[in-house]
């Protein structure tokens, strides 16, 4: 078992890559690329499940660690590991990959080999971001994740793929220039790219104070664009409306949010505390701004984009509230947002494939013709707007409670307003698509409900939404171990679910 534990993370990283090579080699016939991609993603998912099965909850810090020298000068190590913060995110990436393959099963009919090869490379890149503990390796995967995404958006864009891809790439690539300079500067100061070493050195070293603030800002800037945080969201709507469904469901959110927790707050706690009020303000603006824009969209991809902006801003609020409860809520919300978005995008992709339009006004009265689609859509919608007993509620509740008790009552009330607006635009979307009089477009096509493959994915996702909603304690204790012994200056408070405050 030790052999597996000592190499599981490498296996997780290599499995999709091997699949990509295999896809590139086989002929494009009998849907072979699709089947290989499905097998690969299921294998990877199985491998990621090994982590929670053998994770030792009693032990803080990183587990399954591999640390091998990779490049001698400058000293870059292949250093990977997971803790409570990253473990479930890795599983989430593993879970969403087969969902993505199923969502692309019929949607992609040209150049399938390229599509699935790039899709699998994208998986490796994302897994690498969550696993790396060496800043250079992390940066490598971070950058690598852009390339397949941009190419696939350009190749399979719906109207103007290349333009959206260029926007997406430049928006995320240019901020990583200051990030790289900051990493290099840290290296010249400390002689290390290693996360744990740097964490100690930054906490105890004596640095030119101003420079450290700039370095922290460079980190934060790169992450904030990727999330995206309010004024930096320019790429989001275009990317959502052009990207293939399988990629749209993973493009936003978790990479940037995780990086904020791990590398911004984790490395620069003092600097993060100084800038936190700004981010709290931006997050609340983002919640309301995204929700308001989502209300007036006529295109469902764009609606989903602004809805994502709103929900991701809520998670940012949880992170920069700088409380343990907020962090737990944020990580939990990242997980549940991933699951819900996966389901919603899969269903919208099904509609788009059948009716070839994303104009909401073209739809109407679908519920009678496609009852299964409608049911799953409603379930996912309810989960998204935070109905108690479903998964969206837990994270939202934890974040809002922590904001209310330890950040500011005003911001918490404003953020709660966003939750109400979210119910408004999502339910209105359901009403316009699935209810009301049947539209001409819907009448013109023969009814064809979800296929077996899609059901095989949607049932587990729906079940997961329910389980995550009623039994959060299956996840939260593990997540809590990932919140490192927080630096003393945070004045950390822990809000228990009953509402008591514990110092």
């Amino acid at each position, binding site marked *: 078992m030790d052999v597996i534990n000592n190499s599981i993370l490498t296996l997780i990283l290599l499995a999709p890559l091997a699949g990509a090579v295999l896809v590139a080699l086989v002929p494009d016939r009998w849907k072979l690329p699709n089947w290989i991609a499905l097998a690969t993603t299921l294998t990877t998912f199985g491998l990621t499940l090994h982590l929670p099965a053998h994770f030792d909850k009693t032990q803080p810090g990183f587990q399954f660690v591999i640390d091998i020298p990779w490049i001698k000068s400058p000293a870059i190590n292949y250093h990977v590991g997971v803790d409570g913060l990253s473990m479930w995110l890795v599983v989430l990436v593993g879970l969403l990959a087969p969902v993505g393959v199923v969502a692309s099963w019929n949607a992609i009919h040209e150049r399938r080999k390229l599509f699935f090869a790039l899709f699998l490379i994208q998986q490796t890149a994302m897994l690498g971001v969550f696993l790396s503990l060496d800043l250079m390796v992390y940066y490598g995967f971070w*950058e690598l994740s852009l390339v397949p995404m*941009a190419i696939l958006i350009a190749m*399979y864009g719906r109207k*103007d793929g290349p333009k959206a891809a260029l926007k997406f790439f430049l928006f995320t690539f240019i901020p990583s220039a200051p990030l790289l300079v900051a990493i290099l500067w840290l290296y010249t100061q*400390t002689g290390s790219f290693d996360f744990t070493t740097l964490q100690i050195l930054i906490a105890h070293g004596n640095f030119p104070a101003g420079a450290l603030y700039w370095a922290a800002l460079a980190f934060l800037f790169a992450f904030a664009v990727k999330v995206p945080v309010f004024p930096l969201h320019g790429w989001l709507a275009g990317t959502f409306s052009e990207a293939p469904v399988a990629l749209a469901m993973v493009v936003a959110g978790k990479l940037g949010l995780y990086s904020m927790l791990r590398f911004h707050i984790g490395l620069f706690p003092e600097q993060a505390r100084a800038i936190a009020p700004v981010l709290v303000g931006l997050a609340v603006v983002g919640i309301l701004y995204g929700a308001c824009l989502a209300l007036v969209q006529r295109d469902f991809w764009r609606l989903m984009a602004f809805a994502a902006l709103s929900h991701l801003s809520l998670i940012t609020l949880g992170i920069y509230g700088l409380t343990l409860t907020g962090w737990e809520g944020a990580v939990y919300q990242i997980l549940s947002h991933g699951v819900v978005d996966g389901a919603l995008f899969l269903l919208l992709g099904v509609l788009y494939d059948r009716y070839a339009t994303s104009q909401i006004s073209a739809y109407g009265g679908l519920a009678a013709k496609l009852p299964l689609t409608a049911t799953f859509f409603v379930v996912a919608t309810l989960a998204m707007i935070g109905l108690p007993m479903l998964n969206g509620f837990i994270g939202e509740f934890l974040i809002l409670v922590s904001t209310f008790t330890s950040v500011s009552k005003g911001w918490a009330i404003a953020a709660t307003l966003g939750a109400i607006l979210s119910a408004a635009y999502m339910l209105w979307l359901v009403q316009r698509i699935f209810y009301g009089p049947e539209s001409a477009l819907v009448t013109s096509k023969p009814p064809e409900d979800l296929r077996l493959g899609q059901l095989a994915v949607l049932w587990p996702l729906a079940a997961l939404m329910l389980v995550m909603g009623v039994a959060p304690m299956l996840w939260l204790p593990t997540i809590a171990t990932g919140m490192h012994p927080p630096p003393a200056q945070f004045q950390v408070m822990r809000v228990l679910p009953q509402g008591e405050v514990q110092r």
Partner: protein
Amino acid sequence: MIFVLHFLLNHEDLFRILPEVILTLTGVLVMLLDATLPPGLTRRPLGWVAAFGTTLALWGSLFQLSLPAGTGFSGTIETSAFTVFFHVLICGIVLVALLLSLDTLPEKSHHQGEFYALIVFGAVGMCLLTGAVELLLVFIALEISSIATYVLAGYRKHTACGPEAAIKYFLLGSFATAFLLYGIAMIFGATGTTQIYEIARLVPIAQNHAFILVGLGLMLVGILFKVSAVPFHVWTPDVYEGSPTPVVALLSTAPKAAAFALLLRVIYEMLPTLRSVWQPLLWVVAVLSMTVGNLAALRQQNVKRMLAYSAIAHAGYLLAAFAGLGSSGIAAASFYIAAYAAMNVGIFAVVTLVSGYDEKLPLINDYRGLIYRSPLLGSLLIFFLVSLIGIPFTGGFFGKFYAFAAAVGGGAIWLAIIGLLNSGLAAAYYLRLALATAQRPDLDGVTKSTPQQGSPRVGAAVIAALAMAVLVTLVLGIVPNDVLQAAESGAHTLRVPPAEISIPVNVVEPQQP
């Protein structure tokens, strides 16, 4: 006769120019065979002869590693890890360019034998340039390589822009070489010698300091012209556009590598004491090159012109490494040249195949949907573009990484920031091509039938060339240790005075007992 041979084989000096000797013999052999073969016969086998000779020369330079580092021919030529690094690089580039030409030159093209011979003779000059430690030999080597490349640039003489390219390159190049020669004369005037080590010894005690400064300036003009750095870059786009693409693959890499080797030698080995003079100069040239190159490339519609401006920008990134202290800068620059050469040769190889020898498809818009027409070429093009952008796990990333790490280590943080922001800018135009390649052809009203040229002939030679370029780009991006080590041991053989020790902030003061 036997005695002569015996004498030659035992003579250590000869081994010091072994690759050059092999290349010269190959070139002469190709010329002779070309003259003796009957006129109607195909000349392609001559290309294979040249490729074989170049491979031999490559092994020859590796063999030189077993020689003790030192100079030959009364201190005019040096063999060391540094020269071997560049020899191998140049021979590799020339080999790829030859393989590329083998399959893409039209069967009936005129003077094919001379074409191959000229490439090999050019390689002689470039190899000699990296080993020369005597300024007159530097000048001769530069001329050998330049004259060959001038002719090659104008090889498509039936087109309008072919001769234009050759004449522009020749006239401007001759001016630049004249500057270099004048600089050499100035330095000779000040020190009374043209041997680089002697000059390095004499410069600190020389009386005519102004002469040396002027000499340095003039020599820099000549060298920076060869590496196409701003403001000596104006020839680049026209020459790249007019020359046959396999020649551009060579032109944009091998002479540049040789010129950068010369630059390293001149400033680090010959005039290290004038660091306070050349450092700010190169800082400015680096910033100008990246910025001007990238801004101009943004506006280009022609793929070759765009890549020409991108080459100018890359010269700028490379010059950023010169801000590094001591041998770190040299190692970074050497590594960058290797990475740049691999990806640039690769991308020009793909461009050759896509647009053909006659360049029926020169514009970025012509590349639309390439990945749907030819998945292999499309993917390769995107791969090399990704490396040029500098995405991790490709050679381009580590090249930039080491260059800017050297700059940050040398205290030039602003140079690194400007450089990395520039690479963001550069991503815009590389991506424009990459995304056009990936675009679905029926999208956006591009329904007009793209000119269907016969699908490019992808023969064994081209496959080998592309495979080499891809492999090197990947190796430099994933397991760069060995190449980096070679670059570092090369850097250490340059006789650079030790860098001032910079004290890291976190070093704890040793406690006195």
